[in-house]
């Protein structure tokens, strides 16, 4: 029997290798591997063998089967590719794509910003978008009737005033998370990045009533202005690119002392303040710099309101518009910020 197995195998191999078409191969497959094929005929004989021979013969038959199978499939590939070389094939035919979705540019911006700060140990948080006056203003050293409040065009919610926390407002900035974060973490170190929806009563090409801000807050022993600069420069390099520069200028916020305005060199004119082609002033910036947003050293009153001893700890904070900051990335030039909140697929599919 051993010899017969060997012969069937050799015969099959020879015929397979000599085959000239796929159809011929199929005939050979039926002849050797089919239900009534040569191999199955052999298998049927196995139960009649002596018990000590059964295992050995079984293995030999299986081995022959798998060699024939492999040879068949190799030969099939060979014949098909030979045929393919001569049949017309158009490699430029368009692919059938899976559906392609789009994450909104603001989601992409928020993730990128959060990621940059999380890499240097900032904890991402989110605080109420509908907030009490206490957290939005009063705890930030802006008592009722303070003229500084005019800068925040605040929406008021038609709701009862809370005896402890005052009126209900739509938070006009992420700074309302500062005292909440101090209360949550109870004790420095604090490194917070708070990215959230904010609302202000304004609508024009550079303002939408709903917008997003990201707020950084760092509180620890010995935090100073040099640390603030270090953090902002790190962010600017990571987010805008190594060639972009930042600078701090004096400013005023009630909840920081000292306070700064942070500028970044203009991505359009690269700080030259004029368009190189026309020689006219740069359309985007004033004097080569763009205002990114505010920053400052946390006011001791704010630390106190958050239950932190300003004699032991100091901190810095900054809060910038996500839309505004992202639109300052070089290359992305959306003239009207309201476009971001349009549901037009022709816009959404670009990102």
């Amino acid at each position, binding site marked *: 029997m051993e010899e017969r197995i060997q012969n069937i195998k050799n015969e099959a191999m020879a015929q397979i290798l000599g085959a000239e078409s796929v159809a011929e191969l199929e005939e050979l497959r039926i002849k050797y591997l089919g239900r009534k094929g040569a191999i199955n005929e052999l298998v049927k004989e196995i139960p009649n063998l002596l018990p000590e021979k059964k295992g050995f013969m079984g293995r030999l038959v299986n081995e022959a089967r798998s060699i024939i199978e492999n040879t068949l499939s190799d030969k099939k590939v060979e014949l098909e590719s030979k045929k393919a070389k001569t049949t017309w094939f158009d490699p430029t035919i368009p692919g059938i794509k899976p559906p392609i979705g789009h994450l909104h540019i603001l*989601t992409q911006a928020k993730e990128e910003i959060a990621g940059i700060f999380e890499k240097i*140990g900032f904890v991402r948080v989110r605080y109420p978008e509908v907030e009490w006056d206490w957290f939005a203003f009063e705890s930030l050293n802006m008592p009722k009737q303070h003229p500084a409040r005019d800068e925040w065009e605040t929406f008021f919610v038609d709701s009862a005033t809370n005896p402890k926390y005052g009126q209900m407002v739509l938070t006009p900035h992420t700074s309302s998370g500062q005292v909440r974060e101090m209360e949550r973490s109870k004790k420095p170190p604090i490194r917070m990045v708070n990215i959230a929806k904010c609302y202000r009563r304004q609508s024009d090409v550079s303002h939408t009533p709903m917008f997003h801000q990201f707020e950084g807050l760092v509180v620890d022993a010995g935090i100073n*202005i*040099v640390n603030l*600069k270090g953090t902002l420069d790190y962010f600017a390099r990571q987010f805008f690119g190594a060639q972009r520069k930042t600078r701090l200028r004096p400013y005023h916020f009630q909840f920081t002392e000292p306070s700064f305005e942070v500028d970044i060199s203009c991505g359009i004119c690269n700080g030259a303040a004029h368009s190189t082609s026309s020689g006219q002033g740069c359309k985007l910036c004033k004097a080569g710099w763009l205002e990114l947003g505010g920053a400052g050293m946390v006011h001791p009153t704010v630390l106190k309101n958050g239950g932190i001893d300003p004699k032991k700890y100091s901190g810095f904070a900054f809060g910038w518009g996500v839309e505004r900051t992202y639109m300052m990335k070089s290359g992305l030039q959306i003239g009207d910020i309201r476009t971001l909140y349009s549901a037009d697929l022709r816009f959404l599919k670009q990102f």
Partner: protein
Amino acid sequence: MDIIVPHSWLKDYLKTTAKPERIAECFSLCGPSVERIQKSGDDTLYTIEVTTNRVDTSSVYGLAREAAAILPRFEIKASLQPVKVQANQPLTKSVDYLNVVVDHELCSRFTTVLIKDVKIGKSPDWMQDRLKKVGSRPINNIVDVSNYLMFEVGQPVHMFDYDKIKDHKMILRESKKGEGITTLDGKSHELPGGDIVIEDGSGNLIDLAGIMGGKNSAVDENTKNVLLFVQTYNSARIRKTSMTLAQRSDAASLFEKGLDPELVETTIRRGIDLLTELCLAKPENQILDLYPTPYKEKEITTTLSFIQSRLGVPINKPMVQDILISLGFKVRWHANNMSVSVPSWRANEVNLQEDILEEVARLYGYFNLPSKIMSGEIPEKPQGQPFDFEMKIKQLLKGWGGVEVYTCSLVSENKVDISGKPSWVLKLRNPLGADTEYLRLSLSPSLVAAKRQNLGQEPFFLFEMSNVYLPTRGQLPEEKMMLGGVFAGFTYQQAKGIVEAVLQELRISAKFTPSDTKGFNPNQRLEISCKNLNLGQFGILEQDRSIYFEFDVEALQKSGFLNPTYKPIPKYPGQIEDITFSFPTNTRLGEVIHSIKNSDNQIANVELVDSFENSHTFRVTYQDPEKTLTNKEVKKIREKIIMKIEKKFTAHVK
């Protein structure tokens, strides 16, 4: 607040050869921000942003004083020229031309002088030119002098027609609620009470002090004698009245920030000079000046080491001292402790050692500081934050062709909820318009509107993840993070597949229960839940027949099981076969599949693979973890299935 300052006017008080461009740059780096500079004839105009704390710089003179401190830091020579005055009338506590009673809680310094025989006419060209440059329309010499003084020194003044003041008597007092006054712009006000007002001898109100004068005492073309009126008012009172009445004025926006009472004397003397010169008038020989508590320099103590540690550089004593002195502060050292006296024009806003630090730091120049990320311990991330989970969901939907939108959470009344406006929803007291008046309770109307905007581009599906604001009595609203999605050009099954895929990816074994609710077509909505937690809903909305889903993201996070556990791969192959049934029309296939699956615990999987009219083919996988099922065993299970389905759904196997 932005103010415009002509370079030529600035040069009256600032001696320097620096060019406007350079001055603007230095200002922006160390002091007030120069928004732009522009040419005007042979003059240059600065537009300067004055922050609310630095009302002392909202004038030509104030900016010259600031420039004289800043420019030398850039090695530019600059010096401040004092306001020159000739009028030298003595200040007295009473005068015979006016009888006054003043509440000093409302007005810390009350100063006035009678100017007689004014000749009203046009002011000279140079004054008109300057006023036009700063954006003030010239009117006549009296009004122009008032405005000119305000722009030059930053102190508002008022001119009364002296002869219109009954009995030449003034009582400066708090208003009573409901009192009325007509201001010189013709508006009548009913006062809220607690406002600073002046009444004359007849008991009529003649001035809404610090905001606008009364019409009944205003200067007109027949005025002969004027009272030049220069005061320091209680800033909080001015602010409150001006905001409550919505009566804003340049004067109010200066007074509400707290002015320097020491500025009053310079202003009134400069005013006398200008009126004498331009109106050929005769000032009285005495100036009434009621100033019971003159400014006493306040002292702030701090240390060199505080300045150094907050600044982050080892700045030395002489530099700290030079900077502070240049800004008008006085410094006394006791070893490394310092006492800093604050000049009167900064007294309102310099209170803390942090304020002293700011003065030193800004003149040292923030641009001169090095930059270094803080070292120190890193805080631990709180558990259970939703950000990664939310992003995972967004990524999934994007991967299946979803397009994310951000729509405004402030909506019109008809877009508040899935089925119109409910009884309780938060509303803004001061909306921008009716289309953004309410805080939405559902993403659905906004998403349907977004879908409509894109009709013609099917197929597409839009999704949004955003908070909705559910009112809560006496508390802030519950901000519930919702995920909503709307389909266009999708079949119901395709859309449902996406919803099912999300749940599968999040490893949530969710239950879909048909249940009707307002806003959805009857019989076309499923409630989605897991254990007893409601996760969301899916179905066909009444609105546009839109296919819509929404999930409560926090509930998904609670039910999701992101860390998979390993189930051993079956050792024995399963057997797969298709069974086709025909059903009556009103059959729910979801229930059929559920029933098939529950017929026997050796059924590993049931899928709908084909449908034709009322016939549906199900692919059933039979599997036993311990052995290969024999044909006999499979047959037994199959019979069980057929019997159950035929009976329960009045179906027929094919």
